[in-house]
């Protein structure tokens, strides 16, 4: 379960050391934008050592490597792949060939370090207009791709428009990515809300992402994590309804009825599937009887 993903600069030991205490379901240790060229080596070594030494028991570890057009991405993978992070995030992925290039190099490393093929999964960061248009091809380019990730900042630079709090300029990209990922049967994660001093709008932004179908949302501020987790957790109302659905199904089966209605509405397969997802998530979050208030 990944509701929240938190970016942590790869060159800040005092922050990384507390990465697993910040409440995020996943931390993204960043070797790319947060790290200046003169510190790339140091950050790579620090992130490698942190993954080796720290247990990160409460969260997944994702490493954002440098982009394919840089001189660093292979060195990043050389150090990180043997440690089997939960995910590798390659940035600025524009097409299926980008993914296949990374896939092929990771396969080489898996073989070199005696890892089973396809152990290390990737979450392509889509942050260009071309990437958005090729989203489905990217999502299906390799079996390593386990989710898509939208990067709104670089995307708006590429679109030559201003990034706004409301986010109308990335609306198309958000919807396109959700559709592509779902069509490919994988998860999809929303771009961070970057005003770190705004502790209110993060709720609005996360609610909107959830309403579009995003699996979760990323953040560059630890202070936004709780809001994201709250929004992407099932509410008590959701949980109660899911149980009602499952109970209605059970009763209908006992009575040998085919068509099932609840509160005057037909219950079909997608509703049952969603109810099962909600219950599974609530159980994982230990939310039974104490879900998010609405």
């Amino acid at each position, binding site marked *: 379960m990944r509701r929240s993903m938190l970016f942590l600069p790869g060159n800040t030991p005092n922050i990384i050391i507390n990465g697993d*205490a*910040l409440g995020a379901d996943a931390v993204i240790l960043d070797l790319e934008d947060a790290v200046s060229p003169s510190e790339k080596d140091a950050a790579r070594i620090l992130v490698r050592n942190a993954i080796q030494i720290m247990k990160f028991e409460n969260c997944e570890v994702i490493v954002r490597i440098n982009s394919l057009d840089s001189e660093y991405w292979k060195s990043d993978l050389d150090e990180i792949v043997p440690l089997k992070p939960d995910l590798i995030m390659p940035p600025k992925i524009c097409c299926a060939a980008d993914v296949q290039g990374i896939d092929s190099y990771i396969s080489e490393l898996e073989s070199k370090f005696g890892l089973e093929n396809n152990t290390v999964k990737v979450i392509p960061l889509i942050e260009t207009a071309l990437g958005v248009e090729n989203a489905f091809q990217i999502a299906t380019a390799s079996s390593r791709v386990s989710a898509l990730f939208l990067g709104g900042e670089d995307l708006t630079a590429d679109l030559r428009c201003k990034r706004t709090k409301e986010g109308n300029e990335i609306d198309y990209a958000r919807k396109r990515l959700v559709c592509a990922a779902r069509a490919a049967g994988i998860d999809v994660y929303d771009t961070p809300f970057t005003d770190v001093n705004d502790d209110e709008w993060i709720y609005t932004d996360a609610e909107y992402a959830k309403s579009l179908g995003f699996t979760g949302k990323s953040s560059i501020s*630890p*202070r936004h994590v*709780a809001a994201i987790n709250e929004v992407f957790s099932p509410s008590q109302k959701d949980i109660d309804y899911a149980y009602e659905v499952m109970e209605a199904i059970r009763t209908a089966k006992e009575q040998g009825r085919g068509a099932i209605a609840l509160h005057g509405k037909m219950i079909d397969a997608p509703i049952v599937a969603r109810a099962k997802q909600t219950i599974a998530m609530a159980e994982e979050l230990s939310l039974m009887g104490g879900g998010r208030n609405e």
Partner: protein
Amino acid sequence: MNNKIVRTLREAIELSGLKDGMTVSFHHHLRNGDYILNMVMEEVAAMNIKGLTVNASSLFDTHLPLIEHARNHVVRKIQTDYMSGAIGRLISQGVMEEQVEFRTHGGRPSAIELGITPIDVAFIAAPASDSMGNCTGKYGKSACGSLGYAFPDAMNAKKVIVITDNLMSYPLPDWSIPETYVDYVVEVDAIGNPSGIVSGTTKITRDPIGLIMARDAARVIQHSGLLKDGFSFQTGAGGASLAAAKFLKDIMLKEKIKGSFGLGGITGYMVDMLNAGCFESLLDVQCFDLDAVESIRSNPRHQEISATHYASPSARSAVVDCLDVVILGATEIDTGFNVNVHTDSNGYIMGGSGGHSDTAAEAKLSMIIAPLSRARLPIVTEQVTCISTPGKDIDVLVTQKGIAVNPRNKELGQRLKEAGLPVVDICELKKIAEGMTGVPRKLKKGGRPVAKVIYRDETLLDTIYSVPDTL
């Protein structure tokens, strides 16, 4: 006599009969903006008086000239409840011939009243006074709010000199210390620098680790069994403690809990809680910011209390005796829950108990909030460098990676576990801390004792030694 005004400070000192070897006292309500301690000691030095004991409720970096007076034998001994880092560092290097005596904010008035630390002349810096010595901290350009720590000095010193920069007509309305205790009044241009006296507005932390600990601290209180109507609470002015108060306020308002009183050094956040209906009253021994000063001046439910009333163990009763929950800090805490707030991990003095061990001893729930590491040093250790508050008085430690409950308080541990809070053994927290920082080399103590840590019942809790030159 129709007034007690004396023309100059020197004249007042002469009239007080101050002589070699006597004890002078000061309060610390003007904090790092205080001019009075330095002004008096400079005058005393000019009068060639030697071998004084200085009993100050706290000392700040602005009082650094005191060290020079010690070197020149004007000052022989220091008694205080707290000293900030610059003075502490020099004391740790052994500049004083006699050991500093650290007491607590409750222990100090107790020792004064019991005659253990008698005061010959008390110098009371007063933001407002009339000609007969009725004085208060609530008005004037140097307003500091409560004068709580000055009461025992005024009520017990052989001579009392009020020094003010705001002489008002007699009778001063709404006085704190009445004229009955005051011998002389001296008017000066300024008793302090307002910017160092109180901060504009105390802000809660934006540090994510601090916020995580604060949220968990509020949840500990929520599930402690103590958060119900009549609840009473004290917290410090540190960022994480204030954030905990903010989260607690949210919980109290949501659950419609009406507390009885908020206690201690008071900040704007506690004032907000009072105004929001979380408490019936605030009992204020010291104001930390302008919001608190304004509130104590204008809201009758925000009451000034003396240090004795706050925390004296020898009073017939003190407010701390009725306190439910206190949130405190620590520079170190060990696996026996002993807390250090006197020194840093290298052994340099940089603080003091203040009301730490008074509130910890009496509150039903004493909570420490501290991160597992600071500046690459583990905060949870095998043994603290100095015992400021004994572990028997601490119930719970909240860190960013778990909450440790003192095994003495089994019921609390059970309650917190049932509420789903991340309760872990304190030894496990020590292991995690050392996993982050490594195990530091054992600290070498210097050969000379430089300070005594005296518990609120006058027993010796610990001795602080000089720091070796090699550090």
